[in-house]
């Protein structure tokens, strides 16, 4: 009488996008195929089917900043150098958002990626947690930098 097939146990890996949950950061490996249904109460399966990629990276800039300050994997001079280079990039991003088209966004993105690579290469051996946090936040940070409105609200002191 009731031919309606019951929905499967929803092993969909991706989480709903707008929920802001500063959960534990995911490891950078983009390979984990499917996490077992941890939060199985999700009924938005139809929208989830469209986004089969890994869950959006969590981003907690303050925590990341603090981790960078505290890590012993990077020497003090290297930290200052990285900060100098980050400040330079932020300056160029600011000019870009103010209308200066000269370093195009693709170049700025390349500079950003290079900086992240430098950072990762410095921490990946001695501070694996920080390395995975950086890798997991990489896209989210770029999204902040590239969006003029979000960039304007950034506290980059």
């Amino acid at each position: 009488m009731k031919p309606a097939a019951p929905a499967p146990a929803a092993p969909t890996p991706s989480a709903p996008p707008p929920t802001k949950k500063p959960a534990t950061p995911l490891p950078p490996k983009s390979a984990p195929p499917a996490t077992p249904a941890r939060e199985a109460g999700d009924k938005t399966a139809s929208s989830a089917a469209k986004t089969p990629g890994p869950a959006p990276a969590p981003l907690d800039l303050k925590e990341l900043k603090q981790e960078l300050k505290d890590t012993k994997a990077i020497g003090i001079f290297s930290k200052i150098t990285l900060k100098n280079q980050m400040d330079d990039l932020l300056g160029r991003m600011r000019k870009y958002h103010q209308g200066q088209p000269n370093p195009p966004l693709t170049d700025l993105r390349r500079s950003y990626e290079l900086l992240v690579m430098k950072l990762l290469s410095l921490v990946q051996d001695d501070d694996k947690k920080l390395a995975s946090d950086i890798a997991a936040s990489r896209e989210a940070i770029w999204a902040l930098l590239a969006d003029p409105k979000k960039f304007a609200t950034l506290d980059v002191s």
Partner: protein
Amino acid sequence: MNKLTGRWAQSLIVAMLLAVPASAQDEETLKKDLTSVIALHGKPCGQVVGVKVLADNDYAASCEDGNKYHVYLNAEGRVMVDAQK
């Protein structure tokens, strides 16, 4: 009295034994840091094999490939790496 002197001497030796590796470790840490800094500036070096402290936050670094650099923090808070002959 003799026992007391002996203990003092023992403590002194232990302290010295601990102090030497600590400073050696500090130097290794500094070399590693300067190696990273030079690499971050995109300059050739390989590993820093020698460091001379010129002042606070001011070093002369010798690299394994023969390059020498003056690495210092300038007044604006930027780490500078200048090649030296």
